[in-house]
């Protein structure tokens, strides 16, 4: 028994061919930032049915959700919302993927996928419910087959994987889709989700939006290699797509969904995009990031490039543009109205739905609190503003 102290003459060591770093993925792109449609040997196939009309509709959806973002940010500034997490810059990633889903697919997302929720058919008022402080879930997940957006970073990737296990047990051909950010890839949960998904070969798509930032932390702090490379180590095929290219996003998402439906198991998609705005309305990115970076990415804007493509195709008529603007305004208006006219909850709602079965501890507290409120001389239901007294 001894300890090695030789300290091998390391300068003379041969190159280590065995340790191959992961191969860099090519970025999949179908529309250049300048709005040119470039052909792709593999991925054209997946969008060959996308007509001019559909292209226009993709443009419209992206414009609408950007408008939603602007409106929600305004609502926050006006004190109507407590907070809002903008998706500015990520419209293509969300619409391209969200529009590829089938109704019986199920989405598990983070707080930022409001564009995906829009594709799922969310009621506009429901989009702002959580951010106004009126609910912890904006909608009933089963109404639009999209779970309550997750705040605990990465946790939803496991839920998506479990849901996909259920799909598999049911023998169904639906797909479960997990949306998460670049920062989330560092969390144990996301990695464990890949372990389970690979081991059971379940129909789940891991859709990672690399928007380059996790609040103030640049993506290189989470990983100094491409995020798409992470998946290979779990035996999960991955794709790295230009996340600002709505067609390319659609193509890779459709491929991944199709593989999953046919029993081919999970796919990991890295959608390379950029968070053009603050992390949330409470954030101040000037403290940590360079304005130049923003400029670079503005040149790759997901909406302008589709506009340019439509222009090339002669589809960007004044009429169409007006229609889209009207549509966006109408949506924004409906959302604002829904937001500002939302009824406040009742005080005793605080006790509802903790359990679906009676609970003696809570029932007692509820009874006591009702008496407490009543001791102020008002019926419990009428005491909305009194609890804090």
């Amino acid at each position, binding site marked *: 028994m001894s300890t090695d102290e030789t300290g091998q003459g390391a300068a003379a060591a041969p190159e280590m061919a065995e340790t191959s770093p992961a191969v860099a993925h090519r970025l999949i792109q179908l529309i250049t930032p300048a709005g040119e449609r470039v052909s792709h040997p593999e991925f054209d196939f997946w969008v060959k049915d996308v007509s001019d009309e559909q292209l226009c509709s993709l443009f419209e959806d992206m414009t609408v959700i950007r408008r939603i973002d602007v409106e929600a940010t305004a609502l926050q500034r006006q004190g109507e919302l407590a907070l809002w997490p903008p998706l500015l810059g990520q419209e293509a990633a969300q619409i391209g993927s969200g529009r590829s889903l089938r109704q019986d697919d199920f989405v598990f997302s983070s707080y930022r996928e409001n564009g995906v929720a829009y594709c799922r058919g969310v009621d506009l008022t429901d989009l702002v419910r959580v951010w106004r402080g009126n609910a912890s879930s904006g909608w009933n997940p089963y109404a639009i087959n999209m779970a309550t957006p997750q705040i605990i970073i990465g946790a939803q990737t*496991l*839920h*998506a994987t479990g849901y996909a296990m259920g799909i598999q047990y049911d023998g169904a051909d639906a797909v479960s889709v997990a949306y998460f950010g670049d920062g989330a890839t560092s969390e144990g*949960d996301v990695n464990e989700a890949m372990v389970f998904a690979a081991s059971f070969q379940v129909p789940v798509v891991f859709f990672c939006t690399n928007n380059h930032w996790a609040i103030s932390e640049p993506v290189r702090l989470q990983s100094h290699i491409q995020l798409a490379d992470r998946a290979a180590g779990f035996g999960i095929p991955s794709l790295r797509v230009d996340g600002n290219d709505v067609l390319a996003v659609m193509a890779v998402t459709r491929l991944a969904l199709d593989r999953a439906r046919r029993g081919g198991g999970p796919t990991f998609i890295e959608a390379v995009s950029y968070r053009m705005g603050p992390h949330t309305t409470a954030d101040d990115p000037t403290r940590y990031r360079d304005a130049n970076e923003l400029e670079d990415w503005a040149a790759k804007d997901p909406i302008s490039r589709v506009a340019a493509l439509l222009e090339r195709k002669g589809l960007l008529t004044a009429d169409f543009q007006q229609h889209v603007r009207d549509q966006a305004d109408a949506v924004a208006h409906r959302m604002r109205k829904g937001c500002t006219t939302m009824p406040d909850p009742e005080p005793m709602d605080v006790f509802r739905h*903790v359990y679906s079965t009676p609970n003696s501890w809570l029932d007692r507290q509820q009874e006591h609190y009702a008496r407490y409120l009543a001791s102020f001389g008002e019926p419990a239901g009428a005491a909305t503003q009194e609890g804090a007294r």
Partner: protein
Amino acid sequence: MTRMTFARAINAGLRKSLENDPKVILMGEDIGALGGVFRITDGLQKDFGTHRVVDTPLAESAILGTAVGLAYRGYRPVVEIQFDGFIYPAFDQIVSQVAKLHYRTQGAVRMPITIRVPFGGGIGSPEHHSESPEAYFTHTSGLRVVSVSNPQDAYTVIQQAISCDDPVLYFEPKRRYHDKGEVDEGVDPAAALPMGQARVLTQGTDVTLVAYGPLVKTALDAAAAAADEGISLEVIDLRSLAPVDYDTVVASVRRTGRLVVTHEAGQSGGLGAEVAASITERCFNHLEAAPVRITGFDIPYPYSKLEMHHLPGLDRILDGVDRALGRPNSLSGLEG
């Protein structure tokens, strides 16, 4: 009626649930071919297949997180945590997801997940294999927590837990796995004593002795020993730890005027504190003495050569009974 071990009774209850509801799925580490390190799931994968009894990769957060996804899809996952000390990697999923999703979604999404946890000490194991983490969960709103003390209850309550629409932590007193008892497998869980209710095991007049899980047997032994000395203990098996069935305990303490509560978990902030505080609130004018807690110490679970010092035994409980009765005891003469 069949005589069977505690372990076998859980196995039989799981089998019944698997038979009765195709949405019930068992998940965990080594629960398949091995039947679990305690053999609780013995034979179930063979009979129900690998889609109903799922050996998972080694990752507790993922086990609970995927159970959440399965529940979203309408399944009723029954998760085995191999040992008490291995539940903590899943803590986030339990506390932030399992416990809260029903509330979060205004009742739209149910989380009928059962989490089986072999817990407690006394089996001579190394660290992390003998813990009593129940108080972390009884303090977590949205969860229900139960622990049973005999084969019949083990059999019935596991089925009640699985059919409950709320998430349930089912703490199994592992040092009692080999204890035998009569089990009526014909019992209809829906007609049996609901899992939320405590059970008075011995009626008594002098002191109410509250226990759960592994210490119920110890409490009954204590009651027998006390009876020899002419002291009459009313032993209550809590069964439900969250919520505690205070009505049953209150009724008893109003008669006896004295309460001793015992558990293996450390004293400070343990369930005993909750029981003592709530009973004091509800029975202050009936209490003849302060409620007494006889519990594990505020230490990490010790190595096995010392564990019998940490674990409340018969004599420590009787010393606590003496204290409650104002009889000479180890702390006599001490002030505050």
